[in-house]
């Protein structure tokens, strides 16, 4: 059986963003303070790219984070033929899920935001964006970090259920929304991040790295920092 490796990894967090190719960058000064506090409403794709995907502004925070993390991977899925995209799976895990969107929706129900009250909607957004039709899985976990999505994505590739697997760990917090309800401490998000990784069989590609089973967040963060020093 082929060894499963990391083809690409990306990370966004309070301290900055990056991928395993270009390394880690701090946020622009104007935004850095808010993002450190977890106020994510200012997070916009145009910070990272000149292009402005039409769907982005409609998305909730979880989808925006997922979208940015996936775009940061710098993978050209369009180069894959249709039959190959049918075999690219997407797996997401999260502790906070779409709590921020749930609170906004319970305050003011709007048809356009209802679909975003599901933590699996980010998978739909990514599949539409990259035209992926492989296996899908959305897990809510008892702790942040994304070890669950990394494990399941790894199993897909090992078992041959997917040729490539895109796995994400997404945690949002937005004190200006979440702080409006008195929630028990165990529900209140402590930090935020978006981490993404593309796994697949080894092919002697330039960006291939070995998989370490554990926190997807920590692994993506580490690969981005390593790239900064290369």
């Amino acid at each position, binding site marked *: 059986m082929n060894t499963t490796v990391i083809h690409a990894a990306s990370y966004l967090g309070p301290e900055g963003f990056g991928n395993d190719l270009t390394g880690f960058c701090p946020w622009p000064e104007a935004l850095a303070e808010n993002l450190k506090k977890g106020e994510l409403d200012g997070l916009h794709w145009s910070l990272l790219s000149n292009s402005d995907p039409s769907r982005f502004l409609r998305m909730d925070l979880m989808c925006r984070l997922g979208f940015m993390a996936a775009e940061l991977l710098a993978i050209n899925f369009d180069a894959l033929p249709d039959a190959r995209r049918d075999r690219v799976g997407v797996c997401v895990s999260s502790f906070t899920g779409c709590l921020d969107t749930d609170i906004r*929706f319970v305050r003011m129900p709007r048809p356009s935001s209802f679909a975003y009250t599901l933590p*699996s909607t980010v998978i*739909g957004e990514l599949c*539409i964006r990259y035209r992926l*039709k492989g*296996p*899908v899985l959305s897990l809510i976990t*008892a702790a942040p970090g994304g070890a669950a999505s990394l494990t399941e994505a790894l199993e897909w590739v090992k078992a041959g259920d997917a*040729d490539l697997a895109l796995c994400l760990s997404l945690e949002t917090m937005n004190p200006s929304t979440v702080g409006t309800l008195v929630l028990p401490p*165990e529900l209140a998000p402590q930090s935020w991040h978006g981490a993404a990784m593309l796994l697949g069989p080894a092919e002697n590609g330039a960006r291939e790295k070995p998989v370490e089973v554990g926190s997807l967040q920590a692994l993506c963060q580490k690969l981005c920092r390593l790239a900064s020093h290369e």
Partner: protein
Amino acid sequence: MGTPVATALNHHMPAHIAIAGCGAITAVGAGVATLWEAVVANTSALRQREWVIGKTTQNVTAGFVPEEVVKALRVTHPAHADSRAFMFAAAALHEAMGNSGDALKNIPANRRGLVLSTTKANIEALDQLNRRQLVSLPAQRQIQPALLAADLAVNLGCGGPVQCVSAACISGLSALQQGALLIQRGEADVVLVVGVDLISQFVLAGFHSLKSLDPEGCRPFDQARLGLSLGEGAAAIILVKRELLPSPAVCLTGWGTSNDANHLTGPSRDGSGLALAIRRALERAELTPNQIDYINAHGTGTSYNDNMESLALRSVFGDAVPPFGGNKGLFGHTLGIAGVLETVICVNALKHQLLPGTPRLRERDSVAPESLVATPRPAKNLQRVLKMNCGFGGTNAAVILELNPA
């Protein structure tokens, strides 16, 4: 990225994961026996109830769990009396474990896993907090699906792996798949799979805003259908290693998921995404389409869904679509429970050799294949069933159940 490997690797063997027991709390009442009686009678438990949606009071037709069932559960679970999600799920799980015979005997706690399937867990606590109502700490904590799963695992004595799937309306089938995988990978000998969701202010407001509710109650695959009806409750299935269960046993032998990559709230018009999930399930079970004896459809009662499913069935089965039907006219669309609950019906169909009908159907829509089963009828030799669901975000899932697979 380098050039991806071109070959599809198929390392998995057909899985033989047996179903040891089932449990259910639905609009019909408590228990699988009550549910099956309603299936056999082809009745509907959809009821009208007044509900405040936004600022207006409206009549909502839905599958509400009867109040007497809730009252009885509050006596059984006093510590969780204001968490209907916990009470429904725990009751379904206890029933399923009670129906599992000796299969769970001698299985240590650390070999018992639990997989929860839900879209919104105990979401009504969020509604209550927003209205500044008092909510107990456990009920607040169970807004978070994985913490609800953890509380259920403690209540049921599961010390093995615990997972929580929240994948819109394929959550249930996805959870069954995850449960089977935990056993297949050797991480557990027994996995308790439970689906739970509630009809709440939150969920009603959402579907009402999308104008997808049928004011009279859903009529899946009917010419006059107008939309869906919501349902609530819980359903549980106990998965075990095949060798733990004597024959005859219903086994989960195949599963598959896919995405339409098309639209967030509507299915692909041609059914190709669902067809892909069905083919993946057939491939895993090492079956061909002509070996399927009955199909339990998603059948929400919306034109988009029902037509898409009909096209997916024609795409996979051609002109020979096996008998098929849908159960949502009985208990409504139960969202994250649907896959587990409708699989409970499939398990009973195999055990009782009966093809369930399609409650509330009056006249078959012309797009639906002619093999639609309107009223229940005895099956000649029901051996293999295909169950499928679809959801927001373009997700599709299918599983295959077999009676005593070779």
